[in-house]
């Protein structure tokens, strides 16, 4: 049996909001019997884009993470629903609009906050993977159709095939700790969950400081090298994928034509941009 999964590559999302808008367009004002009652015009974000800014000016990056109903294989809402929430054989989770009226507890059952409460209709609602369109033969849900960067992909695969894809593409769930077996898989999530250390290195020669390219940068923690890189043409380096609570570490910078330097920084909860380091050139 093949089942639907959604893959979200956060490195490719540039926050155009087309997924959010396409889903609004599909559900606002449309009563889709058996699948979904209309979404309210304002307020609901069935696809909700989270934003994470890392670093400090001017070495900063921003990651956008579209989140939505995860269509979990071990879904808390299905358990809580007592028949009001169905798990289809193609993996899609549907909150039955006829059976779920008044069930605010279903909203609360979702640890991802992906179920929204429709005040007017007294109804819990979430993104249905556009099951009604897929059932009509559409090849992909509307959020995928409208995505200009390919950050969103929908695939229909057996569990075994999906497991291979997860391993090959290094996909991970949004929150592994919740262990709900979500069918939405994330790629490059480290941009959201991990930290980087970055900085600028200059080389001083004959009284003039210039961006120093090709300097070796070694990041050490407790005396052991964790990672290393080289500075680019603007003398910049960046080491990404670090644990946000790495703690105290040393950045050793060296270059064959310049005297080396070591600077100390502490990574505590967020990415760090080191102060500009100036290496003295041998005269």
């Amino acid at each position, binding site marked *: 049996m093949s089942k639907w999964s959604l893959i979200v590559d956060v490195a*490719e999302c*540039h*926050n*155009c*909001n*087309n997924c*959010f*808008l*396409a889903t*609004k*367009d*599909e559900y*606002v*004002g*449309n009563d889709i019997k058996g699948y979904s009652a209309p979404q309210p*015009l*304002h*307020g609901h*974000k069935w696809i909700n*884009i989270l*934003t994470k*800014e890392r*670093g*400090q*000016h*001017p070495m*900063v*990056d*921003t990651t956008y993470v579209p989140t939505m109903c995860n269509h979990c294989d071990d879904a808390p809402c299905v358990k809580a629903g007592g028949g009001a929430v169905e798990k289809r054989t193609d993996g899609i989770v549907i909150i039955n609009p006829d059976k779920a009226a008044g069930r605010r507890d279903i909203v609360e059952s979702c640890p991802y906050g992906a179920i929204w409460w429709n005040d007017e209709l007294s109804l819990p609602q979430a993104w249905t993977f556009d099951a009604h369109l897929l059932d*009509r033969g559409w090849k992909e849900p*509307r959020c995928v*159709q*409208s995505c*200009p*960067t*390919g950050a969103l992909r929908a695939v229909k695969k057996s569990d075994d095939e999906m497991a291979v894809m997860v391993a090959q593409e290094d996909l991970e769930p949004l929150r592994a700790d919740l262990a709900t077996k979500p069918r939405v898989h994330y790629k490059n999530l480290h941009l959201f969950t991990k930290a980087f250390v970055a900085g600028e290195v*200059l080389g001083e020669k004959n009284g003039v*400081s*210039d*961006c120093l390219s090709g300097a070796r940068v070694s990041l050490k923690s407790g005396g052991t090298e964790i990672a290393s890189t080289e500075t*680019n*043409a*603007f*003398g*910049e380096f960046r080491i990404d994928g670090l644990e946000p609570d790495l703690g105290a570490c040393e950045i050793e910078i060296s270059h064959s034509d310049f005297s080396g330097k070591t600077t100390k920084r502490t990574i505590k909860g967020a990415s760090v941009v080191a102060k500009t380091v100036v290496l003295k050139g041998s005269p």
Partner: protein
Amino acid sequence: MTFSLFLWCMTPALTFYAWRSPKLRDLMDAKNFVAQIQTKDGSRARWYRFDSGRLKSGAGLHDNPDVVIKFKTPRLGVQVLLHLCSGMFHFAYPFLRPFLDPLTVINAAKNFGFEVQGDDEYSLHFTDLMNAMLTHHWAQGTPVDKGETRYVNQTNGGPVFVYVKGEKIVRITPMDFDEKDAPAWTVRARGREFTPPHKSTLCPHGLASKSLVYSSKRLLYPMKRVDFDPNGERNPQNRGKSGYERISWGEALDLAAGEIKRINRNHGHGAILNSHSSHHTWGNIGYYLSSNIRFMNAIGYTKMVLNPDSWEGFFWGASHHYGYTMRMGTAEPYGQIEDCLKEADQIVYWASDPETTCGSYAAFEGTIRRQWAKQLGIKSIHIDPYRNETATWLGGKWIPIIPGTGPALAHAIAYVWITEGLYDKEFIKNRTTDFDKYAAYVLGDDDGEPKSPEWQEPETGVKSHVARALAREWGNKKTYLSCGGKGVGFGGANRSATGIQWARAMVCLMAMQGLGKPGVNFGNLTVGAPLDMQFYFPGYADGGISGDMEGTADAVQNYQRMPHMISMNTSTQKIPRLRIPEALLDGETHGYPTDPKSLEGQFMRFGYPAPGHSKIRMMYKYGGSHFGTTMESNRLAKAYQTEGLEFVLNQSIWNEGEAKFADLILPACTNFERTDIGEWASSGGYGHHNYNQLNHRVITLQHKCIEPLGESKSDFQIFLELSQHMGLSAYFGEAKTEIQWCRDQFLSSDVSKVISWKNFMKKGYYVVPPEENEANRPPTSMRWFYEGRKKDVPEPSPLPAEYGEKYLEGLQTQSGKFEFEPNSLKRFGQDPDRPPINRYIPAWEGRQTKELMDKYPLQLITPHPRFSFHTLGDGKDSVINDIQDHRVLIDGHYYWIARLNPVEAKKRGINQHDLVKLFNDRGSVICAAVLTERLMEGVVHSYESSAEYQPVGEPGESPDIGGCVNVLTPKRHMTEKTTASAPNSCLIEVEKFAIRELAS
């Protein structure tokens, strides 16, 4: 004999079609009247009496007909009627076509070969009846499953499929093409092949269209300001404050037509100003350059002159170095996609955010190409005060720069290139003039001040080592320069006090690198797709149905293909768009024209009022609101309240912005509620081959997806009905409905050679196949110039007289070469802020204006917005407002966003999503604060073009909560002798704002 037979046949034909078509039946039922068709001498005639839906006819002359159509000869009668009827028989059209002669019909109309007598009410109704008979079976749309019909339409952000069920739009999506549609092109670069997906992309504002159609802010009925009495007190001082009452269309049209006649009669030539938005809902028939101009030309009006808003620095500055006035000073847009992917090492994005502004109308078509570039290892560098969305997404070095100081950094780059020999000396020697003078300025030989990286650092905030590294990277690598969203010109930096200098500096830098060399060009992979540029379809600025020979490209592009009546405005008075407030408040103003023909046209000052012309007494406002795009917007509110402005008519879709300042509001419908026709991103004469930003050329019949909501009507229909009051309806409409005009546009184009009208109407679109033969693809821009050959890119400009010596040889400049010291500016010599050598002159409002800085220490930049196409998308109670990076909902109101660096926020005690007041001497705007490290200190970033202008008290005097940040920007032009807006030179202060202050 044939004529009489034709006339006889009309009775059974009308009866038969009325039996088949409810629409025709309703029309027959609507009015009782007698129509008569005859030869002029009356020798052959037949009358038709419509009585309670029944038709009777008889040969000969009627005693008392309400409408009479007379043909000079029976032969002419047959020709005209045959032509009209040709639309009935799709299958026979290819055979009939050679026998149909539209020019005969036009000639007869112009020379009174036939004439229509009687009240316009009946003649228009009779032609409506005839037209309904011909077109009632014209079917639009494709039935799909679940009782839905799939229609096609076009937005400013891309073409769309519209799924409709039972008169209700269910969904609006981008287009997935089918196997019958032409495939996309393929580009080969560095051993790889790249083909875009077989679909169209769509901008956020296009994807929000359904919510715009069903917006609670739609104007559904004609409305009159409650305290406006055309026969008594007009209370102009209450415009923007008073409420409205619903009136009937009959009352509204009587009032509008009555005022047009009265004002022309009482005040004379030029008393009516037509103010319109620069973009309208898509479609060649309903566009402002089409129906609007046709009507305005028919009544005579003062023209509003559009300044080159988004091109300013390039038009008024860069063009003098290298020409391209037809493109407002922006570069040739051909072949760059292939060249960049094959050859370039890196792209420098300078004031350029294509993922936000989407080229022009081009949705995310370039997005995938920038992904290809990244895959190929083409690097990105971003110079912008804000780490914009493109920079955030693509990555690469970000160089924040103090707004308005770009030219200083550019001169320092030139300094490094000159001192380190990193420029194309052969090109400079053979293709340019007076480089030595520019070099002398850069090196400081003429003013003692070398423009070194160290020199620029205090101006720009860019460290000297960064400037030097940038110059070396650029000078040593094959580099594309991307200015603005399209990459070939535009950009926020060219809309500041130093915008002219910046744009000039950009083209000078590219000349130093050998513009046109493989891998060295303007662009960012947005323009230059290898499409078929010869396949003809009229773009919007080709004039549609306007017949306007002066303000559109009708004369150049479409007039000879689609025979129609020309039209001409007889008034020569004009007002710059950004000086409408002065014209009304001060009674006089002046401007410089956006003349694309020559380098010198822009020097021709014009004044208002024009000699012997009336001042403005009436404003006919059409389309979107100008508040959001008018610098120092409060001026406009005050201008509306002046005594001399006797009447304000606003024809609009939504009740927002300027509509709230009208005396009479006429409700227009959206493009989803009318039939229209148009090609994606094709602006015709306003941007030759503008569609070459796309992966597929998509030509659409824009289906009427639903009936107009409420009592709203299409713009064409409103103008037609107004024309009726002035006896102009036959002239305005040429007895054709919108769908018939669409068919005429279709027939005028190459689409009619490859698909039948019936199939085009049904399917709604045609994808133009790309150039199959790679040898026929347009060559790369400027390669001809770089290699010293004749111009070979497919654009018909510059005009022949603009070439100094031999046609197609050299540039538009006097010397034909790239002029570092332009002859045009040297000869003009009257604009001290535009010196012939592009010297750095600090902005008249910015970090260098110390006194003002002390009072207002923050620089406000207002780039084009991401989620709204100018004012289209924003406001209107649409879903766009729910986008967290567009507006923020606080206490029930959606506030516009102002971005601040956390350091600046902390100084002022401002937290994320606090309400803040942005203010200076010009006014104040209440926004929601967004704190971001992506913005440099000392700068506030807030997109321009809010649809809303909501002063909380007296309009023009009180804080705005609509998000109209142009309230704060200066009205001053870049230099004294230009009409160039400079909103990005703006100083403000920001403070935390408590909602309770509004109450007080």
